[in-house]
Structure formats: structure tokens, C-alpha cells
């Protein structure tokens, strides 16, 4: 009987214990260092002025949370650290763009309770070589993951924002 109660208490504690959902897979600084092989250029800033805001709003369906975005440009590549809310909390992405196409998309921080399958390479490799069409959509279809629909959408939106901002800053 004591064993039964111990098991019950253990299961109860397990069920009610708060879930620490935030997972840092790689720090933005670490990501930038990796992309530029430990020798990153000085970061640049892009102020989201009225010039960019309407397009970003069109892609995200809302304004971007911050007014200033940091990015790094060097070796014909640009690196963007962007955030977008999946369901409730922001997902931080690192996106590398070269010749106006994505060469790497990595989930750096995932804060939602569910849907972190989007961080796996089997999913993010779908973005490799993706380009932005004139209608501001990706030139390919990205297969979703059941149970992570909103996270998948957030990643697609940020990929489009990064490609758009790269095209605007690479003129």
C-alpha cells in the first residue's frame, strides 16, 4: 500500500511540476561565430522605418516586435537573427543568406512547450536554397509537421522576412 501511495505521489508531482520550455540550442553569438568561422564582421543595424514596415507587416500579418534589427554581412553572406511568436512565445532563428537564397536556417532558441520538431535538420533543410518570389512567398512548398503548424508558419514567415531584408540591404 505504501508503495502504491509513493508511486501516486511521484506521478502527481511529475504531472503538476512546471515545464521549463525554453531551450537554447545555440546562442546568437555562437551562431554568428560559427557562420564566419570565428571571425565575425562588426554587426550592422537596420531600423525598420516606414520603408520596410508595410512589406514586413504583409509577410508577418503584424508589425515586427522590434524597431531595430541586427545583422552581419561579410564573405558575400548575410546573417540575420530574427524572432517570431509561434503560438505564445518567440522562436529565435538564425538565417544565413548568400546570393539571395537561404543557405542555412537554424532554430537557436525555442520557447514553446510543443512543436520543437521544427529545429531538426530534416525539417530546416527544406529551406536550403529557398528564394523569395515577387509575391513575397518562398519559391517552394514547405512540408508541415502535425502539432507544430504555428511554429512551421513562424519559420516560413521569418525566412521570407530575412530574404526580403537581405534584398533591401544588399542593393
Amino acid at each position, binding site marked *: 500500500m505504501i508503495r502504491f501511495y509513493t508511486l501516486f505521489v511521484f506521478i502527481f508531482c511529475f504531472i503538476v511540476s512546471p515545464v521549463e520550455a525554453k531551450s537554447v540550442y545555440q*546562442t546568437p*553569438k*555562437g551562431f554568428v561565430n560559427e557562420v564566419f568561422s570565428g571571425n565575425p564582421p562588426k*554587426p550592422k543595424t537596420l531600423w525598420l522605418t516606414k520603408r520596410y514596415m508595410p512589406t514586413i507587416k504583409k509577410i508577418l500579418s503584424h508589425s515586427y516586435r*522590434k*524597431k*531595430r534589427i541586427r545583422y552581419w554581412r561579410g564573405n558575400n553572406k548575410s546573417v540575420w537573427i530574427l524572432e517570431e511568436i509561434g503560438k505564445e512565445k518567440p522562436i*529565435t532563428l538564425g538565417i544565413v543568406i548568400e546570393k539571395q537564397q537561404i543557405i542555412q536556417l537554424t532554430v*537557436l*532558441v525555442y520557447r514553446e512547450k510543443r512543436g520543437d520538431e521544427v529545429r531538426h535538420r530534416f525539417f530546416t533543410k527544406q529551406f536550403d536554397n529557398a528564394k523569395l518570389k515577387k509575391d513575397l512567398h518562398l519559391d517552394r512548398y514547405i512540408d508541415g509537421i502535425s502539432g507544430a503548424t504555428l511554429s512551421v508558419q513562424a519559420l516560413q514567415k521569418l525566412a521570407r522576412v530575412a530574404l526580403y531584408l537581405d534584398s533591401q540591404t544588399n542593393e
Partner: protein
Amino acid sequence: MNKMELKQVRSGKRLVKHWHRNLGMFILIVVSLLAITGIALNHSDDLHLNKKFVKWNWVFNLYGLKTPKNILTFSLDGNWVYKVGSTLYLNDFEIQHTGGQLVAATKLSNLYIIVLQNDILLINYDGELIDQLSDTTDYLQDIQAAGINQSKLVIKTANQIIESDDEFLEWELSKSQNIIWLSSQNAPAYVLAQIDRNFRGSGLSYERIILDLHGGRVFGKAAVYFWDLCAIGLLMMCLSGAWMWIKPKKNTRQKTINQQLLN
């Protein structure tokens, strides 16, 4: 039924009657409270109890809604920055929900700089977020203090003292001896009132208080068990009342038979 059995039945009835009366007196107040609050809750919508809010301090104190005394406040050109719970405020304006304690706030490069334990927020004068120097970077962990050195932001972490560039993009070790460390200021009464208001939200609705009175929760956890005891008492009263209601009829009939037998 002989005399002995008859005596036993009578004494049993007296005992139940005695307990019934005492129990009734014991749970009188609680049952009355349950009845009154029950009626009020039944008509909660009609009485708009969920839209009327209590403003009495002693009720807030009873609920443990006493504003903490150690809330740090920083004045930025007459605008006040403070953090209540997980929410950061600029005056009455909610900037955002964020973790970690508020360490310092200052004005630099036409921006408000708000330094939290693991994060630094750059806010414009309208309270809009310009940038958030993420808590996932290596150097902005466990911030203990913030200061100014020749118009540059200085951060003291557990391991080092670092200094930002003008755009808050890059950080380097600070060797300066002339750092002016930022400290909180005492807020005036109207700001303390704002903090109180933001801490308590809209306040407590009458419906919530009546509901808690109904469940006994307003008097603490022990009262909930006392309420349970009273509910059991009420149940016992129902049973004893029913028993006493049924028993006299039987007794009267039995009494007649017994009388005949005795005669």
C-alpha cells in the same frame, strides 16, 4: 416490546434530539452564510457582482495582495520605470512581460535603457521596443549593476565589468575607474499609487469574494476543512431530523400497542 426496550428507544430519541439541537446551533452561522452567499451567487449576473470591485485595503491584505515594499523605481526625465511581478512598466504603460529582476534604468543616446538581470531593453520615448539585447548571449548573464562611463553603458556581471559601444552592439571589458553606478530613486506618492494599482489589477470583484465566502476560502485553508465539517454536520442534521420525523409515528403506534399489552 418490553419496558426496557421502550426505555431504550425513548433515550435514543432524546440523544438524537439533543445532538440535533446542539449541532444546529454549532453550524447556524456557517449555514446562514452559505444560504445568503448562495442566493447572492445565484443572482450574480443580475446584481453585476462580477463588474463591481472592492477597494478596501484590509480585504486586499486578507487576500495577501499587499504590494511588495522592495519594488525598485527609476526616474527617467520624470517618467518612472518599475517592474511589478513579471511586467515592466513605463509610468502606467505596460512595456512587456519579462523575466529577471529590474537592475537599473537610464537615458542614453535618445533611448531609455532598461537593464534586467539577464537582458537589456532599448525603449524609445513612446515606450516602443527598439531592441532587446538577448538573454541568450554569453556576456549578458547575471547582471548585478549598471552604470555610465562617458555616455557609454557599463554592465557589471558576476564575472566582469563590460562596456558597450554607442549603438549597444558590441561590448568590451571596461577598465575605467570613473563609472557612475545607477541606483534607484524613491518614487513620489502618485507613482506608488500607480504601482499599487498595477499590482492589484482591477482589484477583487464582489463575486470573487462572495464565492470565497461561500467556499470558506476567504478565511484560509483551515476554514475550508471547517466548512466541510459543517457540511457533514448539516447532512447529519438532515438524517437526524428525518429520523425524528419518522420515529414519533412509529413510537405512537408502538406506544398504543404497549399500553394495551401493559393493561
